[in-house]
């Protein structure tokens, strides 16, 4: 069961997303404005957010920027009637997981949610496994897994950090480069910044 937040000013969209996600036995909370949603996210982080881009007061893009500023790693699926390539590109640059156009079918909604949740789960699970292998000194195995990890999550800071962890003793200069790349993607990534500090010393 996942905790899902829905941010949309249209009542019918809030209802239909809530209904579909509740049918999958998720806990769903809905918000009509970005401000309400941000307040709730600060109190309790959800596993997944569905949001519109056209919201009253604070627009959806600003909400995405706020989430990025606060370094929340929550998968976001945008559900919008906007189909301009610029808006879609901007939203993806701000780290959204998927973009659904209105109207959408319950199947589309469920598929997008499943993928987003699975991605999130597999990212942290695989990250933990690779870290365990590195710490156990099984470098060849870790390197093999890391190669696929890079391919599957190219925009995540995790693969760069783990690669730096893998080569920090053999090639600290390249490791530092990967840590900087990781910090470009997430400047609040504490593990990466402390390892970089250690290497620079």
């Amino acid at each position, binding site marked *: 069961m996942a905790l899902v937040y829905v941010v949309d000013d249209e009542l*019918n969209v809030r*209802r*239909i997303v809530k*209904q*579909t996600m509740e*049918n999958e036995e998720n806990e769903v909370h809905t918000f009509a404005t970005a401000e309400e949603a941000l307040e709730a996210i600060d109190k309790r982080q959800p596993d997944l957010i569905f949001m519109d881009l056209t919201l009253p007061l604070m627009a959806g893009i600003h909400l995405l920027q706020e989430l990025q500023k606060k370094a929340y790693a929550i998968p976001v699926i945008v559900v919008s009637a906007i189909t301009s390539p610029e808006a879609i590109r901007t939203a993806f640059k701000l780290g959204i997981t998927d973009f659904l156009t*209105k*109207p*959408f*079918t*319950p*199947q*589309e909604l469920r598929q997008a949610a499943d993928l987003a949740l699975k991605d999130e789960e597999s990212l942290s699970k695989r990250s933990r496994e690779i870290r365990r292998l590195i710490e156990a000194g099984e470098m060849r195995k870790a390197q093999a897994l890391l190669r696929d990890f890079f391919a599957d999550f190219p925009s995540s800071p995790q693969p760069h950090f783990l690669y730096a962890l893998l080569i920090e003793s053999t090639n600290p200069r390249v490791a530092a480069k990967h840590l900087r790349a990781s910090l470009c993607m997430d400047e609040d990534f504490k593990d990466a910044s402390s390892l970089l500090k250690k290497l620079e010393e």
Partner: protein
Amino acid sequence: MPFMKGAIKKEEYYVVIFGCGRLGSRIANWLSSMGSSVVVVDRNEQSFQALSFEFTGFQVLGNATELDTLKEAKVDKADVVLVLTPDDNTNLMIAMSAKEYFSVPRVVARAYDPNNIEMFSDFGVEVICPTLLAVENIKNVLYFIGGDER
């Protein structure tokens, strides 16, 4: 032909309704209350006012004889398409596109003129003819005529 004969078995249906008049809006409200995902298409924005407050579906404003409107309503993903505009020719055109172009499993159209029923049926479209339904109902009301005593 009964409406959901050979029904598609799954939890939620994605239904697109063309025409949000008295019939279209009522069916949309009912389907929405049954938990289906409903999209209503009409070229007149005011028509959507006939939808109830509880209606949870989507509204698409546009001319249903244009392919772009059908695409916008995601007819290609529909389990059922209901064609309920007040014009038989428009209904035939939309129903044919839904059936032939978008391969929708169930297409149901309203045909006012009983002479048009065959044309719809030729394309595998299920037809509701208000004229024939009314004739049947009136016959039932006038059961005492013709010695059909019950």
